């Protein structure tokens, strides 16, 4: 396993606009990093360039200090798991997994030993003689993982590997992938558009938008301190409050309402708060409170979601309650100081 460095990577197809704009990042040895973004943000392009399946327009891919930008894909010694699993339909599970070892011209004894070992590790021992068409989606995914791992790759790349599975299996598979990653001390780059999935599985998450990196940090930091409006929006912040006029370093005034935050305002223009962090309170005159009227409500299972009209615009509120509040109710909202985050971009 190894450390991966991507340096000023750019890509444009057929001389058209750039889909990757000068991105750089480093993934440490043994780290599990997810690249998160909506479709077309460049996450799959990045992964394919790292794999060598696509040439970059400029920039470098460096592994353990060695520039491999010009090394062809079949000589990179990486493992890759594809969204479609991409198993060889004409080969059995055993032959699929053995393929990479055969390409490395290992002795038959060693191939058999290593394939058996990895099949047992991934719970596929019983299925060795089956063909891919005879397996369920989850089993195919496991074969695909085993096939990538058996060659002991320097880097494991995964392109939306779970998106073709149903919700329950997806959670189970991601736990299994995480377990294997820790057990085998793998360096993993995992591409996904599912925020929950990547927060659950990753050491760090790299959020991309329009060919650029928006934020690269631990899931906790991204969740509690989104850097930009895009990131905040992407991970479920729905309320955006403009910083009208700065009163001091941590206080601002918007529509005659004074709001405080624990974070420095600096040059920022917007603050944000998650719907579940907005409180519905009784006393109207505390810090960071404002009046509002419920416009609509929605049942979410464990809580109700309300859209509340206030002087600073509509605010989404989530409240855990057994019975909903009724529409047109006049209520007081508190935007707790510690939950009001400043967005610097």
């Amino acid at each position, binding site marked *: 396993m190894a450390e991966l460095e991507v340096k000023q990577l750019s890509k444009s197809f057929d001389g058209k606009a750039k889909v990757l704009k000068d991105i750089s990042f480093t993934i440490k040895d043994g780290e599990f990093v997810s690249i998160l973004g909506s479709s077309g943000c460049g996450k799959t392009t990045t992964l394919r360039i790292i794999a060598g399946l696509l040439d970059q327009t400029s920039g470098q891919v460096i592994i353990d200090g060695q520039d491999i930008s010009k090394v062809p894909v079949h000589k990179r010694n990486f493992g890759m798991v594809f969204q479609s699993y991409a198993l060889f339909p004409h080969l059995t599970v055993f032959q699929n997994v053995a393929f990479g070892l055969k*390409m490395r011209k290992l002795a038959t004894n060693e191939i058999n030993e290593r394939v058996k070992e990895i099949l047992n590790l991934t719970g596929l021992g019983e299925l060795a003689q089956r063909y891919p068409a005879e397996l369920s989606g989850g089993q195919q995914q496991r074969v695909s993982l085993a096939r990538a791992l058996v060659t002991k790759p320097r880097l494991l790349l995964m392109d939306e590997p779970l998106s073709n599975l149903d919700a329950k299996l997806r959670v189970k598979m991601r736990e299994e992938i995480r377990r294997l990653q820790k057990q085998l001390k793998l360096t993993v780059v995992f591409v996904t558009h599912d925020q929950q999935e990547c927060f659950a599985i990753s050491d760090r998450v790299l959020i991309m938008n329009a060919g650029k990196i928006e934020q690269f940090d631990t899931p906790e930091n991204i969740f509690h301190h989104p850097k930009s409006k895009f990131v905040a929006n992407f991970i479920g912040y729905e309320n955006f409050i403009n910083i009208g006029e700065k009163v001091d370093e941590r206080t601002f005034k918007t529509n005659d309402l004074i709001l405080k935050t624990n974070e420095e305002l600096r040059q920022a223009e917007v603050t944000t708060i998650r719907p579940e962090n907005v409180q519905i309170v009784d006393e109207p005159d505390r810090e960071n409170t404002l009046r509002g009227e419920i416009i609509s409500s929605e049942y979410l299972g464990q809580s109700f979601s309300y859209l509340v009209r206030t002087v600073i615009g509509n605010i989404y509120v989530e409240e855990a309650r057994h019975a909903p509040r009724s529409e047109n109710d006049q209520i007081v909202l508190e935007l707790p100081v510690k939950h009001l985050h400043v967005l610097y971009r």
Partner: protein
Amino acid sequence: MRANNGKYLLLPALISVALFTFYPIIQIALPTIKDFSTFKDLYGSFFTSTYNVRVLGRTFLIAVITTFIVLLIGLPVSLWIARQKKNLRQVLSILILFPMLTNAVVRNFAWIIILGRDGIVNKLLMAIGIISKPASILYTNTSIVIGSVYLFLPIMITSLIGSISELNIEVEEAAAVLGSNPFSTLIRVILPQLTTGLLTGAILVFAGTMTAYTTPQILGGNKHLVMSTLIYQQAMTLGNWNSASAIALILILVSALSMILMKKGVKLLDRRPDNAN
């Protein structure tokens, strides 16, 4: 409507196959097997005549060689076409089929001009000094093979483009990431997935060449008979209808047997359970 009511929709097709394929074959077969002495006479004399056996061998050999060459040329061409961008792929696919819009007789006459003593092939070969005097290419087995390859290549390419464009390209990428170079990916990953397409194409070409009449008639001259031209000679020139019928049946049997063997051979190579063969 119950789902299996749909099977009645097959009736028109089944009736026309029975009426236009099997009925004529039976009509041809009956007079040749009406009694044992006729049967022995007709089929026995075919196989005791070295001339006729040589015609059968030639027909078979021409079909095998043609199929082989068509596979050899068709595979790389269709791989290349199938992997082009959509627009170019469509244009190329149409261009491939374009010659088929012309009458087969006309196309074969074009080969007479190309392959003749003063044709472009002989002129070219002499210009680069491979031969010193015009070679006789026309009216040989070679010219029949050339004409047949030209005739059946579009069918093979069209059949293969269909199979290739159904392949999941990620499977090839997976092979590359696992350390397989492009050539090894072609041999170990692409070709094994194309067995059905290759077989379909090969059977079409083989059956087509075995039974073709126009091409061997025009490009083979009267010294290089194949089964179909032999049938014509027996029936039309010699008025020997029963003998022509017997030869036709032998041709049908040899073709059918070869195709069954081809299928069996491919099945041995490709033991996937989901194999559609």
